[in-house]
């Protein structure tokens, strides 16, 4: 590389290490009174077209990343995350009952719903605020978005299966019925010998998870 003038090197190093932009006067004072103006021009010219540039703003000089590379300083990393059970339930309730307020969601779910859950659904772009209900307190009401339909492959909300279809698919069977059905099927009598362990066990009902934070 070409020989660089000592004063230019000093100006380069001083501006690089400086914690704030510096005026030519401050630089000069720092470098023993030398006239730094020429060095500043040389430096600015040297950095043209590089990843970093020397710029003057309000008579103060500083290095900065070339503007066209600013996007390099901020990168976005996408992380695939599965919707929590609680958030899925809330999304389903919004989809089936929209527009719906948070109080209504809670009354349908039978459990409290943290605001974080709705935030997640809005971040995902599937739920939006659809105004306020004109009742005392004017609660915010929520509805699904076109992105929701796209993501779940639905032409419209009418494509969601109705209660009758859910019942026919066995998805609405209460837990009690399912247990007795299993008992009726299981003809094995528990014995007092070691084979008793093979008695049919009904899968325990799924645990109610209230993992709203996800």
């Amino acid at each position, binding site marked *: 590389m070409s020989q660089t003038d000592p004063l230019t090197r000093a100006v380069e*190093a001083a501006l*690089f*290490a*400086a*914690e*704030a932009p510096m005026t030519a006067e401050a630089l000069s004072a720092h470098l023993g009174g030398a006239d730094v103006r020429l060095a500043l021009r040389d430096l600015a010219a040297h950095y043209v077209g590089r990843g970093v540039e020397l710029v003057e703003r309000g008579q103060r000089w*500083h*290095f*900065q990343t070339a503007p066209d590379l600013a996007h*390099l*300083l*901020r*990168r*976005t*990393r*996408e*992380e695939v*995350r*599965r*919707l929590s*059970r609680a*958030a*899925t*339930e809330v*999304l*389903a*309730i919004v*989809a*089936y009952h929209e527009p719906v307020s948070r109080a209504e969601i809670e009354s*349908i*779910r*039978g459990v409290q719903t943290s605001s974080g859950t709705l935030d*997640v659904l809005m*971040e*995902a772009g*599937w739920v939006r605020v659809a105004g306020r209900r004109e009742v005392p307190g004017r609660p915010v009401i929520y509805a699904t978005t076109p992105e929701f339909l796209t*993501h*779940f*492959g*639905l032409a419209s909300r009418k494509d969601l*299966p109705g*209660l009758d279809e*859910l019942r026919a698919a066995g*998805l*609405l*069977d*209460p*837990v009690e019925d399912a247990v007795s059905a299993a008992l009726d099927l*299981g*003809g*094995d*009598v*528990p*014995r*007092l*010998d*070691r084979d*008793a362990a093979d008695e049919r066990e009904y899968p325990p009902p*799924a645990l*109610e998870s209230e993992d709203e934070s996800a």
Partner: protein
Amino acid sequence: MTEVASPLLPLETEDWNGPAAARTDDSALYLELDGWEGPLDLLLDLARRQKVDLRAISILDLVDQYLNYIDQAEALRLELAADYLVMAAWLTYLKSALLLPRDEQEDPSPEELALRLQLRLQRLAAMREAAARLFARDRLGRDTFVRGAPEGLRVDRKNMWQCDWFALVQAYAQVKARTVPVVHMVRDRLVMTLDSALARVSAMLGVALDWMELRDFLPAQAEPRLRRSALASSFVAALELARLGKAELRQDAAFGPLHVRGRKP
């Protein structure tokens, strides 16, 4: 560079890294002792004053200088840390051993002990010099500087939420199923009471001669829930009969089949 003088030897300037004090009088001793990090450090200091390669020092001279130093400290009634005195005792022993005729020397030989001391001094000296060279390098934050105001690189995380149609529908169905009002009904069940089990087992034991498995006492054609009740009641009945001395129970292994036999009075 640090001006260094010995408290015991004539004033001299050296380029080793000992405790700094331009004093020659004995009153400096106390401060000097604070400056050494233990007896090995003091020995290294003394060895350096011989102005030769550490491989060529005279161990006997070194021992004399160290003992002389300790004597003076004691004459001034300075409190010496125990490890300085331990080293003094060891050096006294080493000196006397070295002065013995060779054929009277013990094992390990005093030469080996002296070598050991010399090797330790060399190693300490090497590390001290290495430390000095390390700290004399161009150091970041003192001689070289990183950028004063870096913009910083940021990585923003963006969540891509995943959920499929079935999970959605299933979740709704479960909410519905969970919150449907539930009516609990207890069905009328066929049971075998303890009394009837007692009568039944007693009667069967009366006709059986040998061990019988408890299972064989159960009604053969009963529906499952009655069989379960009968098994429990018959088991309790068998225990009760055994308590009354009317039956014997046998089980060959834990969880194995339970056998019952009538006991003739």
